[in-house]
């Protein structure tokens, strides 16, 4: 049995052609040879999962691609998707010492992808501990990167892991939420399939949303790992928000990635200025929308999107409307939307509307993208798991929550960071669970 898959969609592939195509084999070797092979390398230290970057790069240079991939997977089981989605400019590649020589950093992400692609196309499966030895049983709630990393690490070290996912496909945001030109849903699923083959069990369409479900979980498993991510996207809190034609950024991204939306036309307004807002705006352009505005209540220097994401959006043809705030959504003639906005200025810490600066944008779709709300209700019902400011309180080193049977990592703990942070957290939690079990059995 394999995990659920998506059909290949040539139109999607063409419209969302990869932002950074793979390196040709010889180009990879030449790039690998540029690596200085630093000792105690800053790139490794900058990676939350501490991938031995010079180690895997030198293996590419020597033609030991299998060894290179295993070196990566040893530290980061999602090495394939991380190679595509990591903001390496601010992580490993940002730490490359070559910057200090005014030289281009080593293209670590592309090299990592080169090794991982070779490994995946070889069809080799990763070894896990024999199933008979699996005494510790762990439920990983949520099928995203944190749970995948946790479950893989558990299986690798002789525990039994079951991933419980409410959606029909595994992978969490890797499958549903990352721009297709960075990571294809099919590639995410291929990676999950590798993890499944290590012996991780998957249950799809199962929501843990009642006290009874939690009790059942507790009676079936020794420990429970929470990798549930964040809650639904924040609402704008303005009149007309539930109009037909308003669709939040994650809904839009998930819909086009699984083929529910194949085209967009007219004028699209994305509200927000984070990386997800940019992904949604770019997607709208690539799906065919003629005009895409990105509306942000503050200025360019305040936006939380990475610089390179901002530059990318400009290249995609996204137009930015700065210091403008939505105040209402109305439905106009012919079913189009009328988005009422006002120019704002910052006075001290407050944003105040500028008189007579009202402006109505006639558009077809409004896409709120102002962040995800902290947490699903699930957590509130979990006995003894502490929550602060909408995040699960968990020990940084072990992921253990206030209830010692519960561990947690990923966005639900850190409030929304990178895939690689979730992987690191999931891995640390798995190791801690194994250690706890060892102590208990000793």
């Amino acid at each position, binding site marked *: 049995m394999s995990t659920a898959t998506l059909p290949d969609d040539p139109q999607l592939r063409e419209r969302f052609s990869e932002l950074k195509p793979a390196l040709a084999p010889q180009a990879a070797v030449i790039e690998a040879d540029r690596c200085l092979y630093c000792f105690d390398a800053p790139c490794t230290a900058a990676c939350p999962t501490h991938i031995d970057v010079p180690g895997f790069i030198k293996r590419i240079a020597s033609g030991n691609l299998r060894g290179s991939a295993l070196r990566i997977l040893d530290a980061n089981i999602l090495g394939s998707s991380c190679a595509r989605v990591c903001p390496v400019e*601010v992580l490993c590649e940002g730490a490359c010492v070559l910057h200090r020589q005014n030289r281009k950093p080593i293209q670590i992400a592309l090299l990592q992808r080169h090794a991982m692609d070779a490994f995946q196309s070889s069809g080799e499966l990763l070894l896990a501990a024999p199933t008979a030895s699996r005494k510790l049983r762990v439920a990983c709630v949520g099928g995203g990167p944190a749970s995948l990393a946790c479950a893989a690490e558990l299986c690798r070290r002789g525990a039994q892991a079951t991933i419980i996912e409410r959606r029909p496909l595994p992978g969490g945001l890797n499958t549903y939420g990352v721009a297709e030109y960075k990571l294809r849903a099919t590639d995410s699923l291929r990676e999950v399939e590798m993890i499944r083959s290590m012996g991780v069990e998957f249950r799809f369409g199962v929501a843990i949303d009642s006290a009874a479900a939690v009790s059942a979980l507790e009676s079936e498993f020794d420990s429970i790992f929470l990798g549930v991510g964040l809650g639904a996207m924040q609402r704008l809190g303005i009149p007309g928000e539930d109009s037909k034609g308003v669709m939040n950024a994650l809904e839009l991204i998930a819909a086009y990635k699984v083929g529910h939306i194949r085209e967009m036309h007219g004028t699209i307004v994305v509200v927000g200025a984070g990386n997800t807002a940019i992904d949604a705006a770019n997607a709208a352009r690539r799906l065919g929308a003629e005009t895409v505005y990105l509306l942000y209540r503050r200025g360019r220097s305040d936006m939380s999107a990475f610089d390179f994401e901002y530059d990318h959006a400009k290249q995609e043809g996204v137009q930015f409307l700065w210091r403008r705030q939505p105040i209402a959504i109305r439905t106009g003639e012919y079913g189009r939307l009328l988005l009422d906005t006002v120019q704002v200025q910052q006075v001290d810490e407050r944003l105040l509307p500028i008189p007579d600066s009202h402006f109505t944008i006639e558009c077809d779709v409004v896409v709120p993208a102002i962040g995800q709300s902290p947490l699903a209700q699930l957590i509130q019902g979990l006995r003894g798991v502490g929550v602060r400011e909408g995040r699960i309180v968990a020990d940084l*080193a072990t992921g253990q929550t206030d209830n010692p049977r519960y561990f947690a990592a990923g966005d639900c703990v850190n*409030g929304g960071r990178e895939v690689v942070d979730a992987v690191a957290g999931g891995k640390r939690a798995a190791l801690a669970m194994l250690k706890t079990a060892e102590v208990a059995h000793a």
Partner: protein
Amino acid sequence: MPDIRIRGFAGKIDSPNPFWLASAPPTNCGEQIMRAFDAGWGGAVWKTIGEPVTNVSSRYSATDWNGQRIMGFNNIELISDRRVEDNLREMAEVKKRYPQHVVIASLMVASNRESWHEIVVRAEDVGADGLELNFGCPHGMSERGMGSAVGQVPEYAQMITEWVKEKARTPVLVKLTPNISDIRTVARAAKRGGADGLSAINTINSITGIDLDTLVPRPIVDGKSSHGGYCGPAVKPIALNMVQQIMSDSDAALPLSGIGGIGNWRDAAEFILLGCGTVQVCTAVMHYGYRIVEDMAEGLDNWMRSKGFNTIEDFRGLSLPRVTEWKHLNLNYRIVARIDEQKCIGCELCHIACWDGAHQCIHLDRVTGPLNGHIELHPTPAIREAESRASIVETTVARNERESAVVGPYPTPLARIPRVDETECVGCNLCSLVCPVDQCITMVRVDTGLPPETWDERTRGAACPAQTQS
């Protein structure tokens, strides 16, 4: 205004510049050599003329290094596969069209007096400016009693040189093989035989590598291989050493045409500084074409200008007195490594090189400080690395990389800039060699307060040399 012309090399060879093409594929025929002269080469040693051979395919293989093609080059090609009369007819044509350029006939014939007499006369009759006796070819020809089979036996080399000199009217150069334990023995033999000059070195016996799929060494000829002759940038240090050995030996030294890994003006200058009167190039031309000579001539000219040398003779051999036996080196001269914090990029290659490959005196303790006072104890590199990898890192929420500009006095965090323990540093140079940044690690002289003293001086007259002290 420097003048890079050569006058009276090996007695009577004048050349527009010291740059000659070595006897090899780039000098296979007259058409090539005339194009080379047009490109700026001063001379060419014609691909060795003799009884035509049959070659195999393939013929070449190379050693790549760290992404660079042809660090070293290997061939199993033999001497010219063209008829003697064709080569000589074209040689006459070249000399007619390019009377100012140097054409040297490289020769290799069966080891008897008549054959050598005949070929010498024929080559000189068509206008060769000099003769180069190929006593060096290490593959194929040597199995037939020619090439390095001659060059490895001083008596044969002397004998054939004498035969040639019986007839030759132009300067005779003997090309030496490096595939011998002491190249001076044959150089001396050539000198005794009356040679007017030498060419060195020929290629070095080699197997460049093995195809790990088929398990056959390269170059592959129908599933088999044979040792070849190695050349290119990789052999330059070996060639320089042999050039120095020859030129420092009064029984061997003759006007020398330097060969071995020369690809640019710097290489050429180095061979000349060790006494060579001209230099010969092959591999670099096979890689990039005749055009490389432009920079060779310009670069040498500019360097001479900056150093105040007006002619090649002004600096030829100037480095020879700087080479001595080890026992004459000053034992009381001391240098230590200094790291320029402003230039350091924090790769820590010097640290690991010093710990694992040298004398454990470059440390990463600028922030933590020496652990144990005067006698320093340091964690080993492996412990350091393990600590680093046990740390918990999360990507920052503050995503504004615009503001993550460098702060502080150095571009690199102080914790990553290594420190040299100068009391322990032996001045070996290793760190400065591995450092990827120019002039970041320099070796600085420290005063030992002791007068110069060599090993020779220290042990002179000593009853028992200090080897036994260990």
